[in-house]
């Protein structure tokens, strides 16, 4: 299983060099990787059923690298790898015009691997890790066209919102893990009752739902998804319809045994239904191809969320089946949109038409997918819609069935219109030849949704292993009462036809309503928040960072001095005695250092000051040597040398004028130096006298530890073994600092 998970990551690493060699090759390799994973997972499931893998990771915290293949993760991983593979093959043809495709395939594989890891994860923290990875890869993919301002803005917007969800998720997972006493998924799922009855259930639920809402574009956090359409079409098809946005829904299903209570139902159903309606309305209003589909996705995600809000098996069945269907058909529709835009150069649906003759395969694909979305039999979408209607009837919520009908009508309206406007109605649009390599993958996806409709047992086979745990059947029947699923379907179809008949009028009405409502929209709120943030930073920046280096250092030192002196009540530290010759030499060296320091302060120009400071540095190295610390001494000497060189190089560039000290500020400088000097000296003396703080180093000076690490040098062993994690952090900071310097000094080239 680790292999299946690892393949996409492996493909990611290979992508860039492969693309440089031969364009399009990375697509094939990544596609193959996806399909291989697909087959591997399929085989594992058929042969073995549920499988778990476990490697200890951070043993001290109880976090393990655990993977878990069960009915749910199997379903999802098939989706991820299968649809992913097809889309990668599609990309090969689609991305011909693009540059830097190596980067594209690398990001796509990164995403695939992360999503796969997310669904296969058997450990809470590991799940969070992969969740964040999907956020990051989505960010990278949305902002793929790095030079376009809109792309950057959309990517940042998505990052902020889904990142916020990520933080909420971490909090929720931590609460769960700590409450249960383990981060292993199996154990958490078994402790459902305990969690549901505990005192922190409500905060936990809220945090959890926040994460779900952010990632799966529920109202009002849905605003990032329409803007994410600036990404290349394969990205929209994969991430933003079939995979990433489904991650939130996955979370819902995964943790349903643990969190599902009447509270869950009370929150989720309104949330989902509202999203469904809002999305549907916006889909009718929109005219840009991909935006229509984006709003449609939002609407369908709302439907899915509300389906899992219903605390009955039917809800889960409906949700899973519809999830499957929707992933297939939405991806297919996006691919169609891509083909249309590629061949006609148009994105506005109002200007399209008459493409049915030119592109029969694509038209057929679109027709199938749109019909499935609208819920027309015998397509897969019909079955899942029916199940959903049944779920709404059982939900106990009187509004839900009616709203479902409304949602269904809206969906019917915009999906049939989508097909009609592009392919059926008369139009004179010039289009190039139908690209087969693009049309075929789309057709396959649409055909699958047809298959799911025509052969119900297929869907049942995929969904029921999960549902079996609770035992149920997959049938579409009436539930009695005034409404029943077939009647609801008829009603929503009728509503849909009504909408179609009056489509143009409705669309322009909605457009006007929209511009009127814009002031209250979440988008406006988001933009407002972003602007306020920027204003606050700018103002603060002007206040604190007026460009004067003196101000910065003065502020730093003042703060340092204050912090050091305040907390300690004032015991007198002991002074070590002078016991042998070495100590005298040491004392002399220190005196020399003090002299150098005063020179640095007294001298007129910066060059000499720098030299004095360097001299101090070398003297410091000498003290290290005298105190038997060769590592430190060597490092100090080298660092001092490098610093000196850098200083000299930098000084060479600064205009001479800026270096003269000013007479006026003399007294403040002296006071500042005294405060800091006294503070630091005091703290150092205190720590050395072992009065307050027992020596940490003693723990590592134990000779028996040599066997553990094989090393006799304490300093090195501490750095690379006992405190290796700290070191990891340190070198990351060093790397980042050098990048920062690099970027900041970029302007100098121009001088």
């Amino acid at each position, binding site marked *: 299983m680790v292999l299946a998970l690892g393949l996409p990551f492996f493909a990611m690493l290979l992508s860039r060099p492969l693309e440089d060699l031969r364009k399009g090759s990375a697509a094939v390799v990544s596609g193959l990787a996806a399909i291989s994973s697909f087959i591997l997972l399929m085989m594992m499931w058929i042969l073995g059923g549920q499988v778990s893998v476990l490697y200890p990771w*951070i043993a001290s915290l109880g976090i393990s690298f655990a993977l878990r293949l069960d009915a749910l993760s199997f379903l999802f991983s098939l989706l991820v790898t299968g649809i992913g593979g097809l889309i990668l093959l599609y990309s090969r043809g689609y991305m011909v015009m693009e540059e830097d495709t190596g980067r594209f395939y690398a990001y796509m594989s990164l995403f695939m691997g992360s999503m796969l890891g997310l669904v296969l994860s058997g450990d809470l923290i590991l799940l969070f890790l992969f969740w964040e990875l999907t956020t990051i890869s989505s960010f990278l993919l949305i902002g793929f066209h790095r030079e376009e301002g809109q792309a950057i803005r959309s990517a940042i917007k998505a990052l902020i919102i889904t990142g916020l969800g990520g933080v909420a998720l971490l909090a929720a997972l931590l609460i769960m893990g700590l409450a249960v006493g383990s981060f292993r998924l199996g154990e958490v799922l078994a402790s459902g009752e305990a969690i549901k009855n505990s005192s922190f259930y409500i905060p936990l639920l809220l945090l959890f739902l926040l994460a779900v809402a952010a990632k799966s574009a529920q109202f009002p956090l849905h605003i990032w998804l329409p803007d994410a359409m600036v990404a290349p079409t394969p990205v929209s098809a994969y991430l933003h319809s079939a995979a990433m946005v489904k991650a939130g829904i996955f979370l819902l299903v995964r943790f349903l045994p643990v969190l599902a209570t009447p509270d869950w139902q009370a929150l989720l159903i309104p949330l989902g239904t509202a999203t469904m309606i809002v999305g549907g309305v916006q889909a009718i209003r929109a005219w840009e191809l991909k935006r229509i589909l984006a709003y449609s996705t939002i609407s369908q995600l709302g439907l899915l969320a509300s389906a899992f809000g219903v605390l009955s098996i039917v809800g889960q069945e409906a949700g899973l089946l519809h999830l499957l269907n929707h992933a297939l058909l939405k991806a297919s529709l996006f691919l169609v949109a891509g083909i249309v835009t590629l061949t006609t150069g148009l994105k506005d649906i109002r200007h399209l038409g008459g493409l049915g003759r030119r592109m029969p395969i694509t038209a057929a694909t679109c027709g199938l997918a749109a019909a499935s979305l609208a819920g027309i039999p015998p397509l897969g979408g019909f079955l899942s819609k029916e199940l959903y209607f049944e779920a709404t009837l059982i939900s106990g919520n009187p509004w839900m069935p009616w709203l479902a009908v409304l949602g269904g009508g809206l969906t019917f309206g915009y999906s049939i219109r989508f097909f009609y406007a592009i392919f059926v109605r008369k139009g004179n649009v010039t289009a190039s030849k139908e690209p087969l390599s693009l049309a075929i993958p789309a057709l396959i996806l649409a055909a699958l949704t047809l298959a799911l409709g025509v052969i119900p047992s297929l869907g049942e086979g995929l969904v029921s292993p999960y549902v079996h745990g609770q035992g149920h059947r997959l049938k579409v029947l009436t539930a009695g009462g005034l409404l029943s699923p077939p009647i609801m379907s008829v009603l929503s179809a009728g509503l849909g036809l009504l909408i179609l008949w009056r489509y143009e009028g409705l669309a322009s009405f909605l457009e006007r309503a929209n511009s009127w409502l814009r002031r209250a929209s979440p988008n406006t709120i988001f933009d407002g928040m972003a602007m306020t943030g920027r204003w606050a930073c700018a103002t603060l920046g002007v206040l604190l960072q007026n460009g004067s280096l003196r101000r910065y250092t003065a502020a730093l030192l003042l703060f340092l001095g204050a912090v050091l002196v305040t907390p300690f009540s004032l015991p007198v530290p002991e002074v070590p005695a002078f016991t042998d010759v070495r100590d005298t030499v040491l004392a002399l060296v220190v005196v020399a250092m003090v002299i150098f320091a005063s020179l640095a302060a007294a001298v007129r120009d910066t060059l000499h000051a720098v030299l004095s400071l360097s001299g101090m540095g070398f003297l410091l190295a000498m003290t290290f040597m005298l105190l038997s610390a060769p590592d430190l001494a060597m490092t100090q000497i080298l660092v001092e040398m490098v610093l000196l060189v*850098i200083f000299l190089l930098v000084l060479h560039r600064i205009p001479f004028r800026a270096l003269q000290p000013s007479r006026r500020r003399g007294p403040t400088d002296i006071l500042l130096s005294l405060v800091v000097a006294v503070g630091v000296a005091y703290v150092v003396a205190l720590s050395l006298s072992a009065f307050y703080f027992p020596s940490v180093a003693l723990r590592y000076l134990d000779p028996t530890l040599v066997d553990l690490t094989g090393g006799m040098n304490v300093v*090195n062993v501490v750095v690379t*073994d006992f405190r290796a994690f700290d070191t*990891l952090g340190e070198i990351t900071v060093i790397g980042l600092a050098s990048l920062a310097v690099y970027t900041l000094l970029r302007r100098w080239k121009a001088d």
Partner: protein
Amino acid sequence: MVLYVGILFSLTLLLAGHNEPGGGFVAGAMTASVFALLYLVYGKDYVEARFRADYRSIAAAGLLITVLFTLLPMAWGEPALSSIILSLDLGPAGSLKVATAVGFDFGIYLVVVGSILTILRRGAGGEEGV
């Protein structure tokens, strides 16, 4: 000439680190100083004509290696960041005891070299010595 001796010495420092004074940071600083010297004396163009490398990539590679060695023990079933001591048999030359912490150290070395040189190069842009 100085360059080669310098690099050799820093590698010695790096490998010896576990038992003798040395280690990744020092070795990295050493190599960087040697390069600094070259930049100072000969200037940017000379040095870069002979040594073409993107310093940022070196630093990034170092980070990658460190992370790799952090995760490597997991392949043996140990939690991450464990150190494993391997014994290599070199026939007549006796056996060599090596700890995987060396790999970690090597990563540190590259990060330090890469970072310092990135900064240095920025400062040295276009100069013929100081």
